[in-house]
């Protein structure tokens, strides 16, 4: 899957590229307004990451251009501005998602994953991981053909891990994913353990392989 990263900060673009590459993503970068337009004109992508503040122009104009041409690419705005108006404006013009800096790469990967999935399968897709089947529309999980009841947060975690397969996801990233802004206001991230413990237990009880590995000191990794 092709991802275009429109970001003028080379180090950040490199990190994103590094994180996404290898897991069936092919990343290209554009560091300026002009370069971004050239790339969009020349190629098609599955997903475009768009920084709003670019040398040579405003990212929102690029978004206008993409939408004007009725292109199919999903667009995720990555912005340092974190201003409500920008977010609303971006989503109104037709961006699919908005993530503000600084973000965890795992969070970004989950957003991209979810966006591409929605675009490709027209929202009726079923994800498969060997014996595990996730129906995204019905929000149900089957293991070996049998329904396993997950809470909303457990399902959320499962998808998050699948989007970051073979990557180590830190506890902090998980806490922020589950609780948003308030995560680091909380003294402990114990609630993350609780949800993961339940998730693992339910999968194990349904006879699934233990894909979710605990990496001591750093977090978790979904191996497949």
């Amino acid at each position, binding site marked *: 899957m092709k991802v275009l990263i429109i970001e003028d900060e080379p*180090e950040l673009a490199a990190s994103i590229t590094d994180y996404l590459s290898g897991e069936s993503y092919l990343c290209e970068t554009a560091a300026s307004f002009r370069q971004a337009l050239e790339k969009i004109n020349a190629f098609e992508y599955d997903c475009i990451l768009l920084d709003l503040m670019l040398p040579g122009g405003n990212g929102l104009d690029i978004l206008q251009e993409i939408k004007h041409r009725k292109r199919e690419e999903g667009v995720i705005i990555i912005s340092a501005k974190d201003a409500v108006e920008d977010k609303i404006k971006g989503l109104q013009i037709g961006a699919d998602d908005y993530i503000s800096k600084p973000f965890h790469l795992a969070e970004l990967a989950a957003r991209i994953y979810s966006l591409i999935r929605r675009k490709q399968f027209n929202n009726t897709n079923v994800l498969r991981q060997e014996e595990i089947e996730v129906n995204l529309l019905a929000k149900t999980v089957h293991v070996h053909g049998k329904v396993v009841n997950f809470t909303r947060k457990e399902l959320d975690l499962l998808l998050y891990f699948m989007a970051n397969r073979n990557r180590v996801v830190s506890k902090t990233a998980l806490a922020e994913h589950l609780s948003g802004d308030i995560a680091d206001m909380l003294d402990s991230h114990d609630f993350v353990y609780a949800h993961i413990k339940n998730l693992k237990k339910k999968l194990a009880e349904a006879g699934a392989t233990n894909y979710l590995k605990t990496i001591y000191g750093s977090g978790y990794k979904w191996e497949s």
Partner: protein
Amino acid sequence: MTRLLNKPLRAFILYSLVVLATSIPAYYLIIDYIWRLQLDEHNQLVSKKTQNELSTLSLNDTLLKQSIELWDRIQPGTVLEPVSQAEMRPDSIYTVLRPNKYDPDGYINRFRGLSTYFILHGKPYRLIVETNVEESDETIAAITVVTVFFFLLLLGGFIILNKRISVRLWKPFYRTLEKVQHFNLSRQQNIQFEDTSIKEFKELNDALQHLIEADMTAYRLQKEFTENASHELQTPLAIIRSKLDLLLQSSTLTNEQSDIIEQATRALSRVSRINRNLLLLARIENNQFADRQQIDLSGIVNENLLMLDEHLSNKGIEREKDIDDAIQITGNRTLVETMVSNLLLNAIRHSPAGGKIKVQLSARQLRISNSGNGPLKEDGLFQRFSNISHESPGSGLGLAIVKQVCNRYGWEVSYSYSQDFHVFTIRF
């Protein structure tokens, strides 16, 4: 407090009182002096004329004697009598007080007299001419009455003039004052002073205008600085975070190294949040949440509680809520949500494990209490970075944001400690 204009008025009145009071003896002395001078002259004239007339009459002794007696009888105020040679004296002028025989009431009158000696037909005579003068007390009384009348006239004039002056002349000053009183720096609205033709007021207005503009610029720059600084920090923070995430992927990490990365990640999260909150504060101050709408506060509080439920139970905190239905307030949704969640998180963070939090909402107020051990220092509780504690590090901005939001909508936020509970109350 006295009004500025009443100060000179009092001085003017006092001064005119003193001047007019001292004028009374002055007038009296002058008038009396003129009186006496005039009467002396008059007496002199009478005496000269009498002497002249008598000497030109060329009467014989008997006739003269009879004439003098007749004269004495019919001519009031004069006495003409023969005297011996030895009684002759130089002329003298005097003032005498005696009853006036023609005055029916017999009052004591004042007379100015002239006694003169002259020789007529070889015989010495004495002529006394006396003229009634106004008494001093009557003169003084008359002058005093007139003076008091003029003083009252001055007093009335001063007061009326003063009023007129204060209304008309000082109008620009009071207008300027009113504008300055209503000036609010955080609103960033410049003041337009009215034009005035008076130099002092013009200078005052110009100086104020200058001062206000400089203040506004400094204030704006300071706010912009915070916002820009926070903006600029976002990107490097994003880079550090992404690099840490990447580092975590390295397969050769030891447990220790993983721990270090995790600790760095957590610290970085705090920095990011402080930065976000600073940005939020700057934005509130910069009026970037201007829109207002009706908000279902009950809904917001309930949603927040629901979201925090698991954190409450994780910490073993008991929850007690008394939330009235459908409480509506007007404000910006983002800000109100931030305010509610900050207060709730604050309560959870500072409750000891196994503690209790109470949430009460009515049309009049929102009250969030949590158990604690001893009151907090109220001083600067709502100021930025004032309540940083090392046991539970937050951003140090949560309450500052709450305060800022309340200020914006004219709500009143207060803290108290009662029955082992920290109580935060917002009155709408």
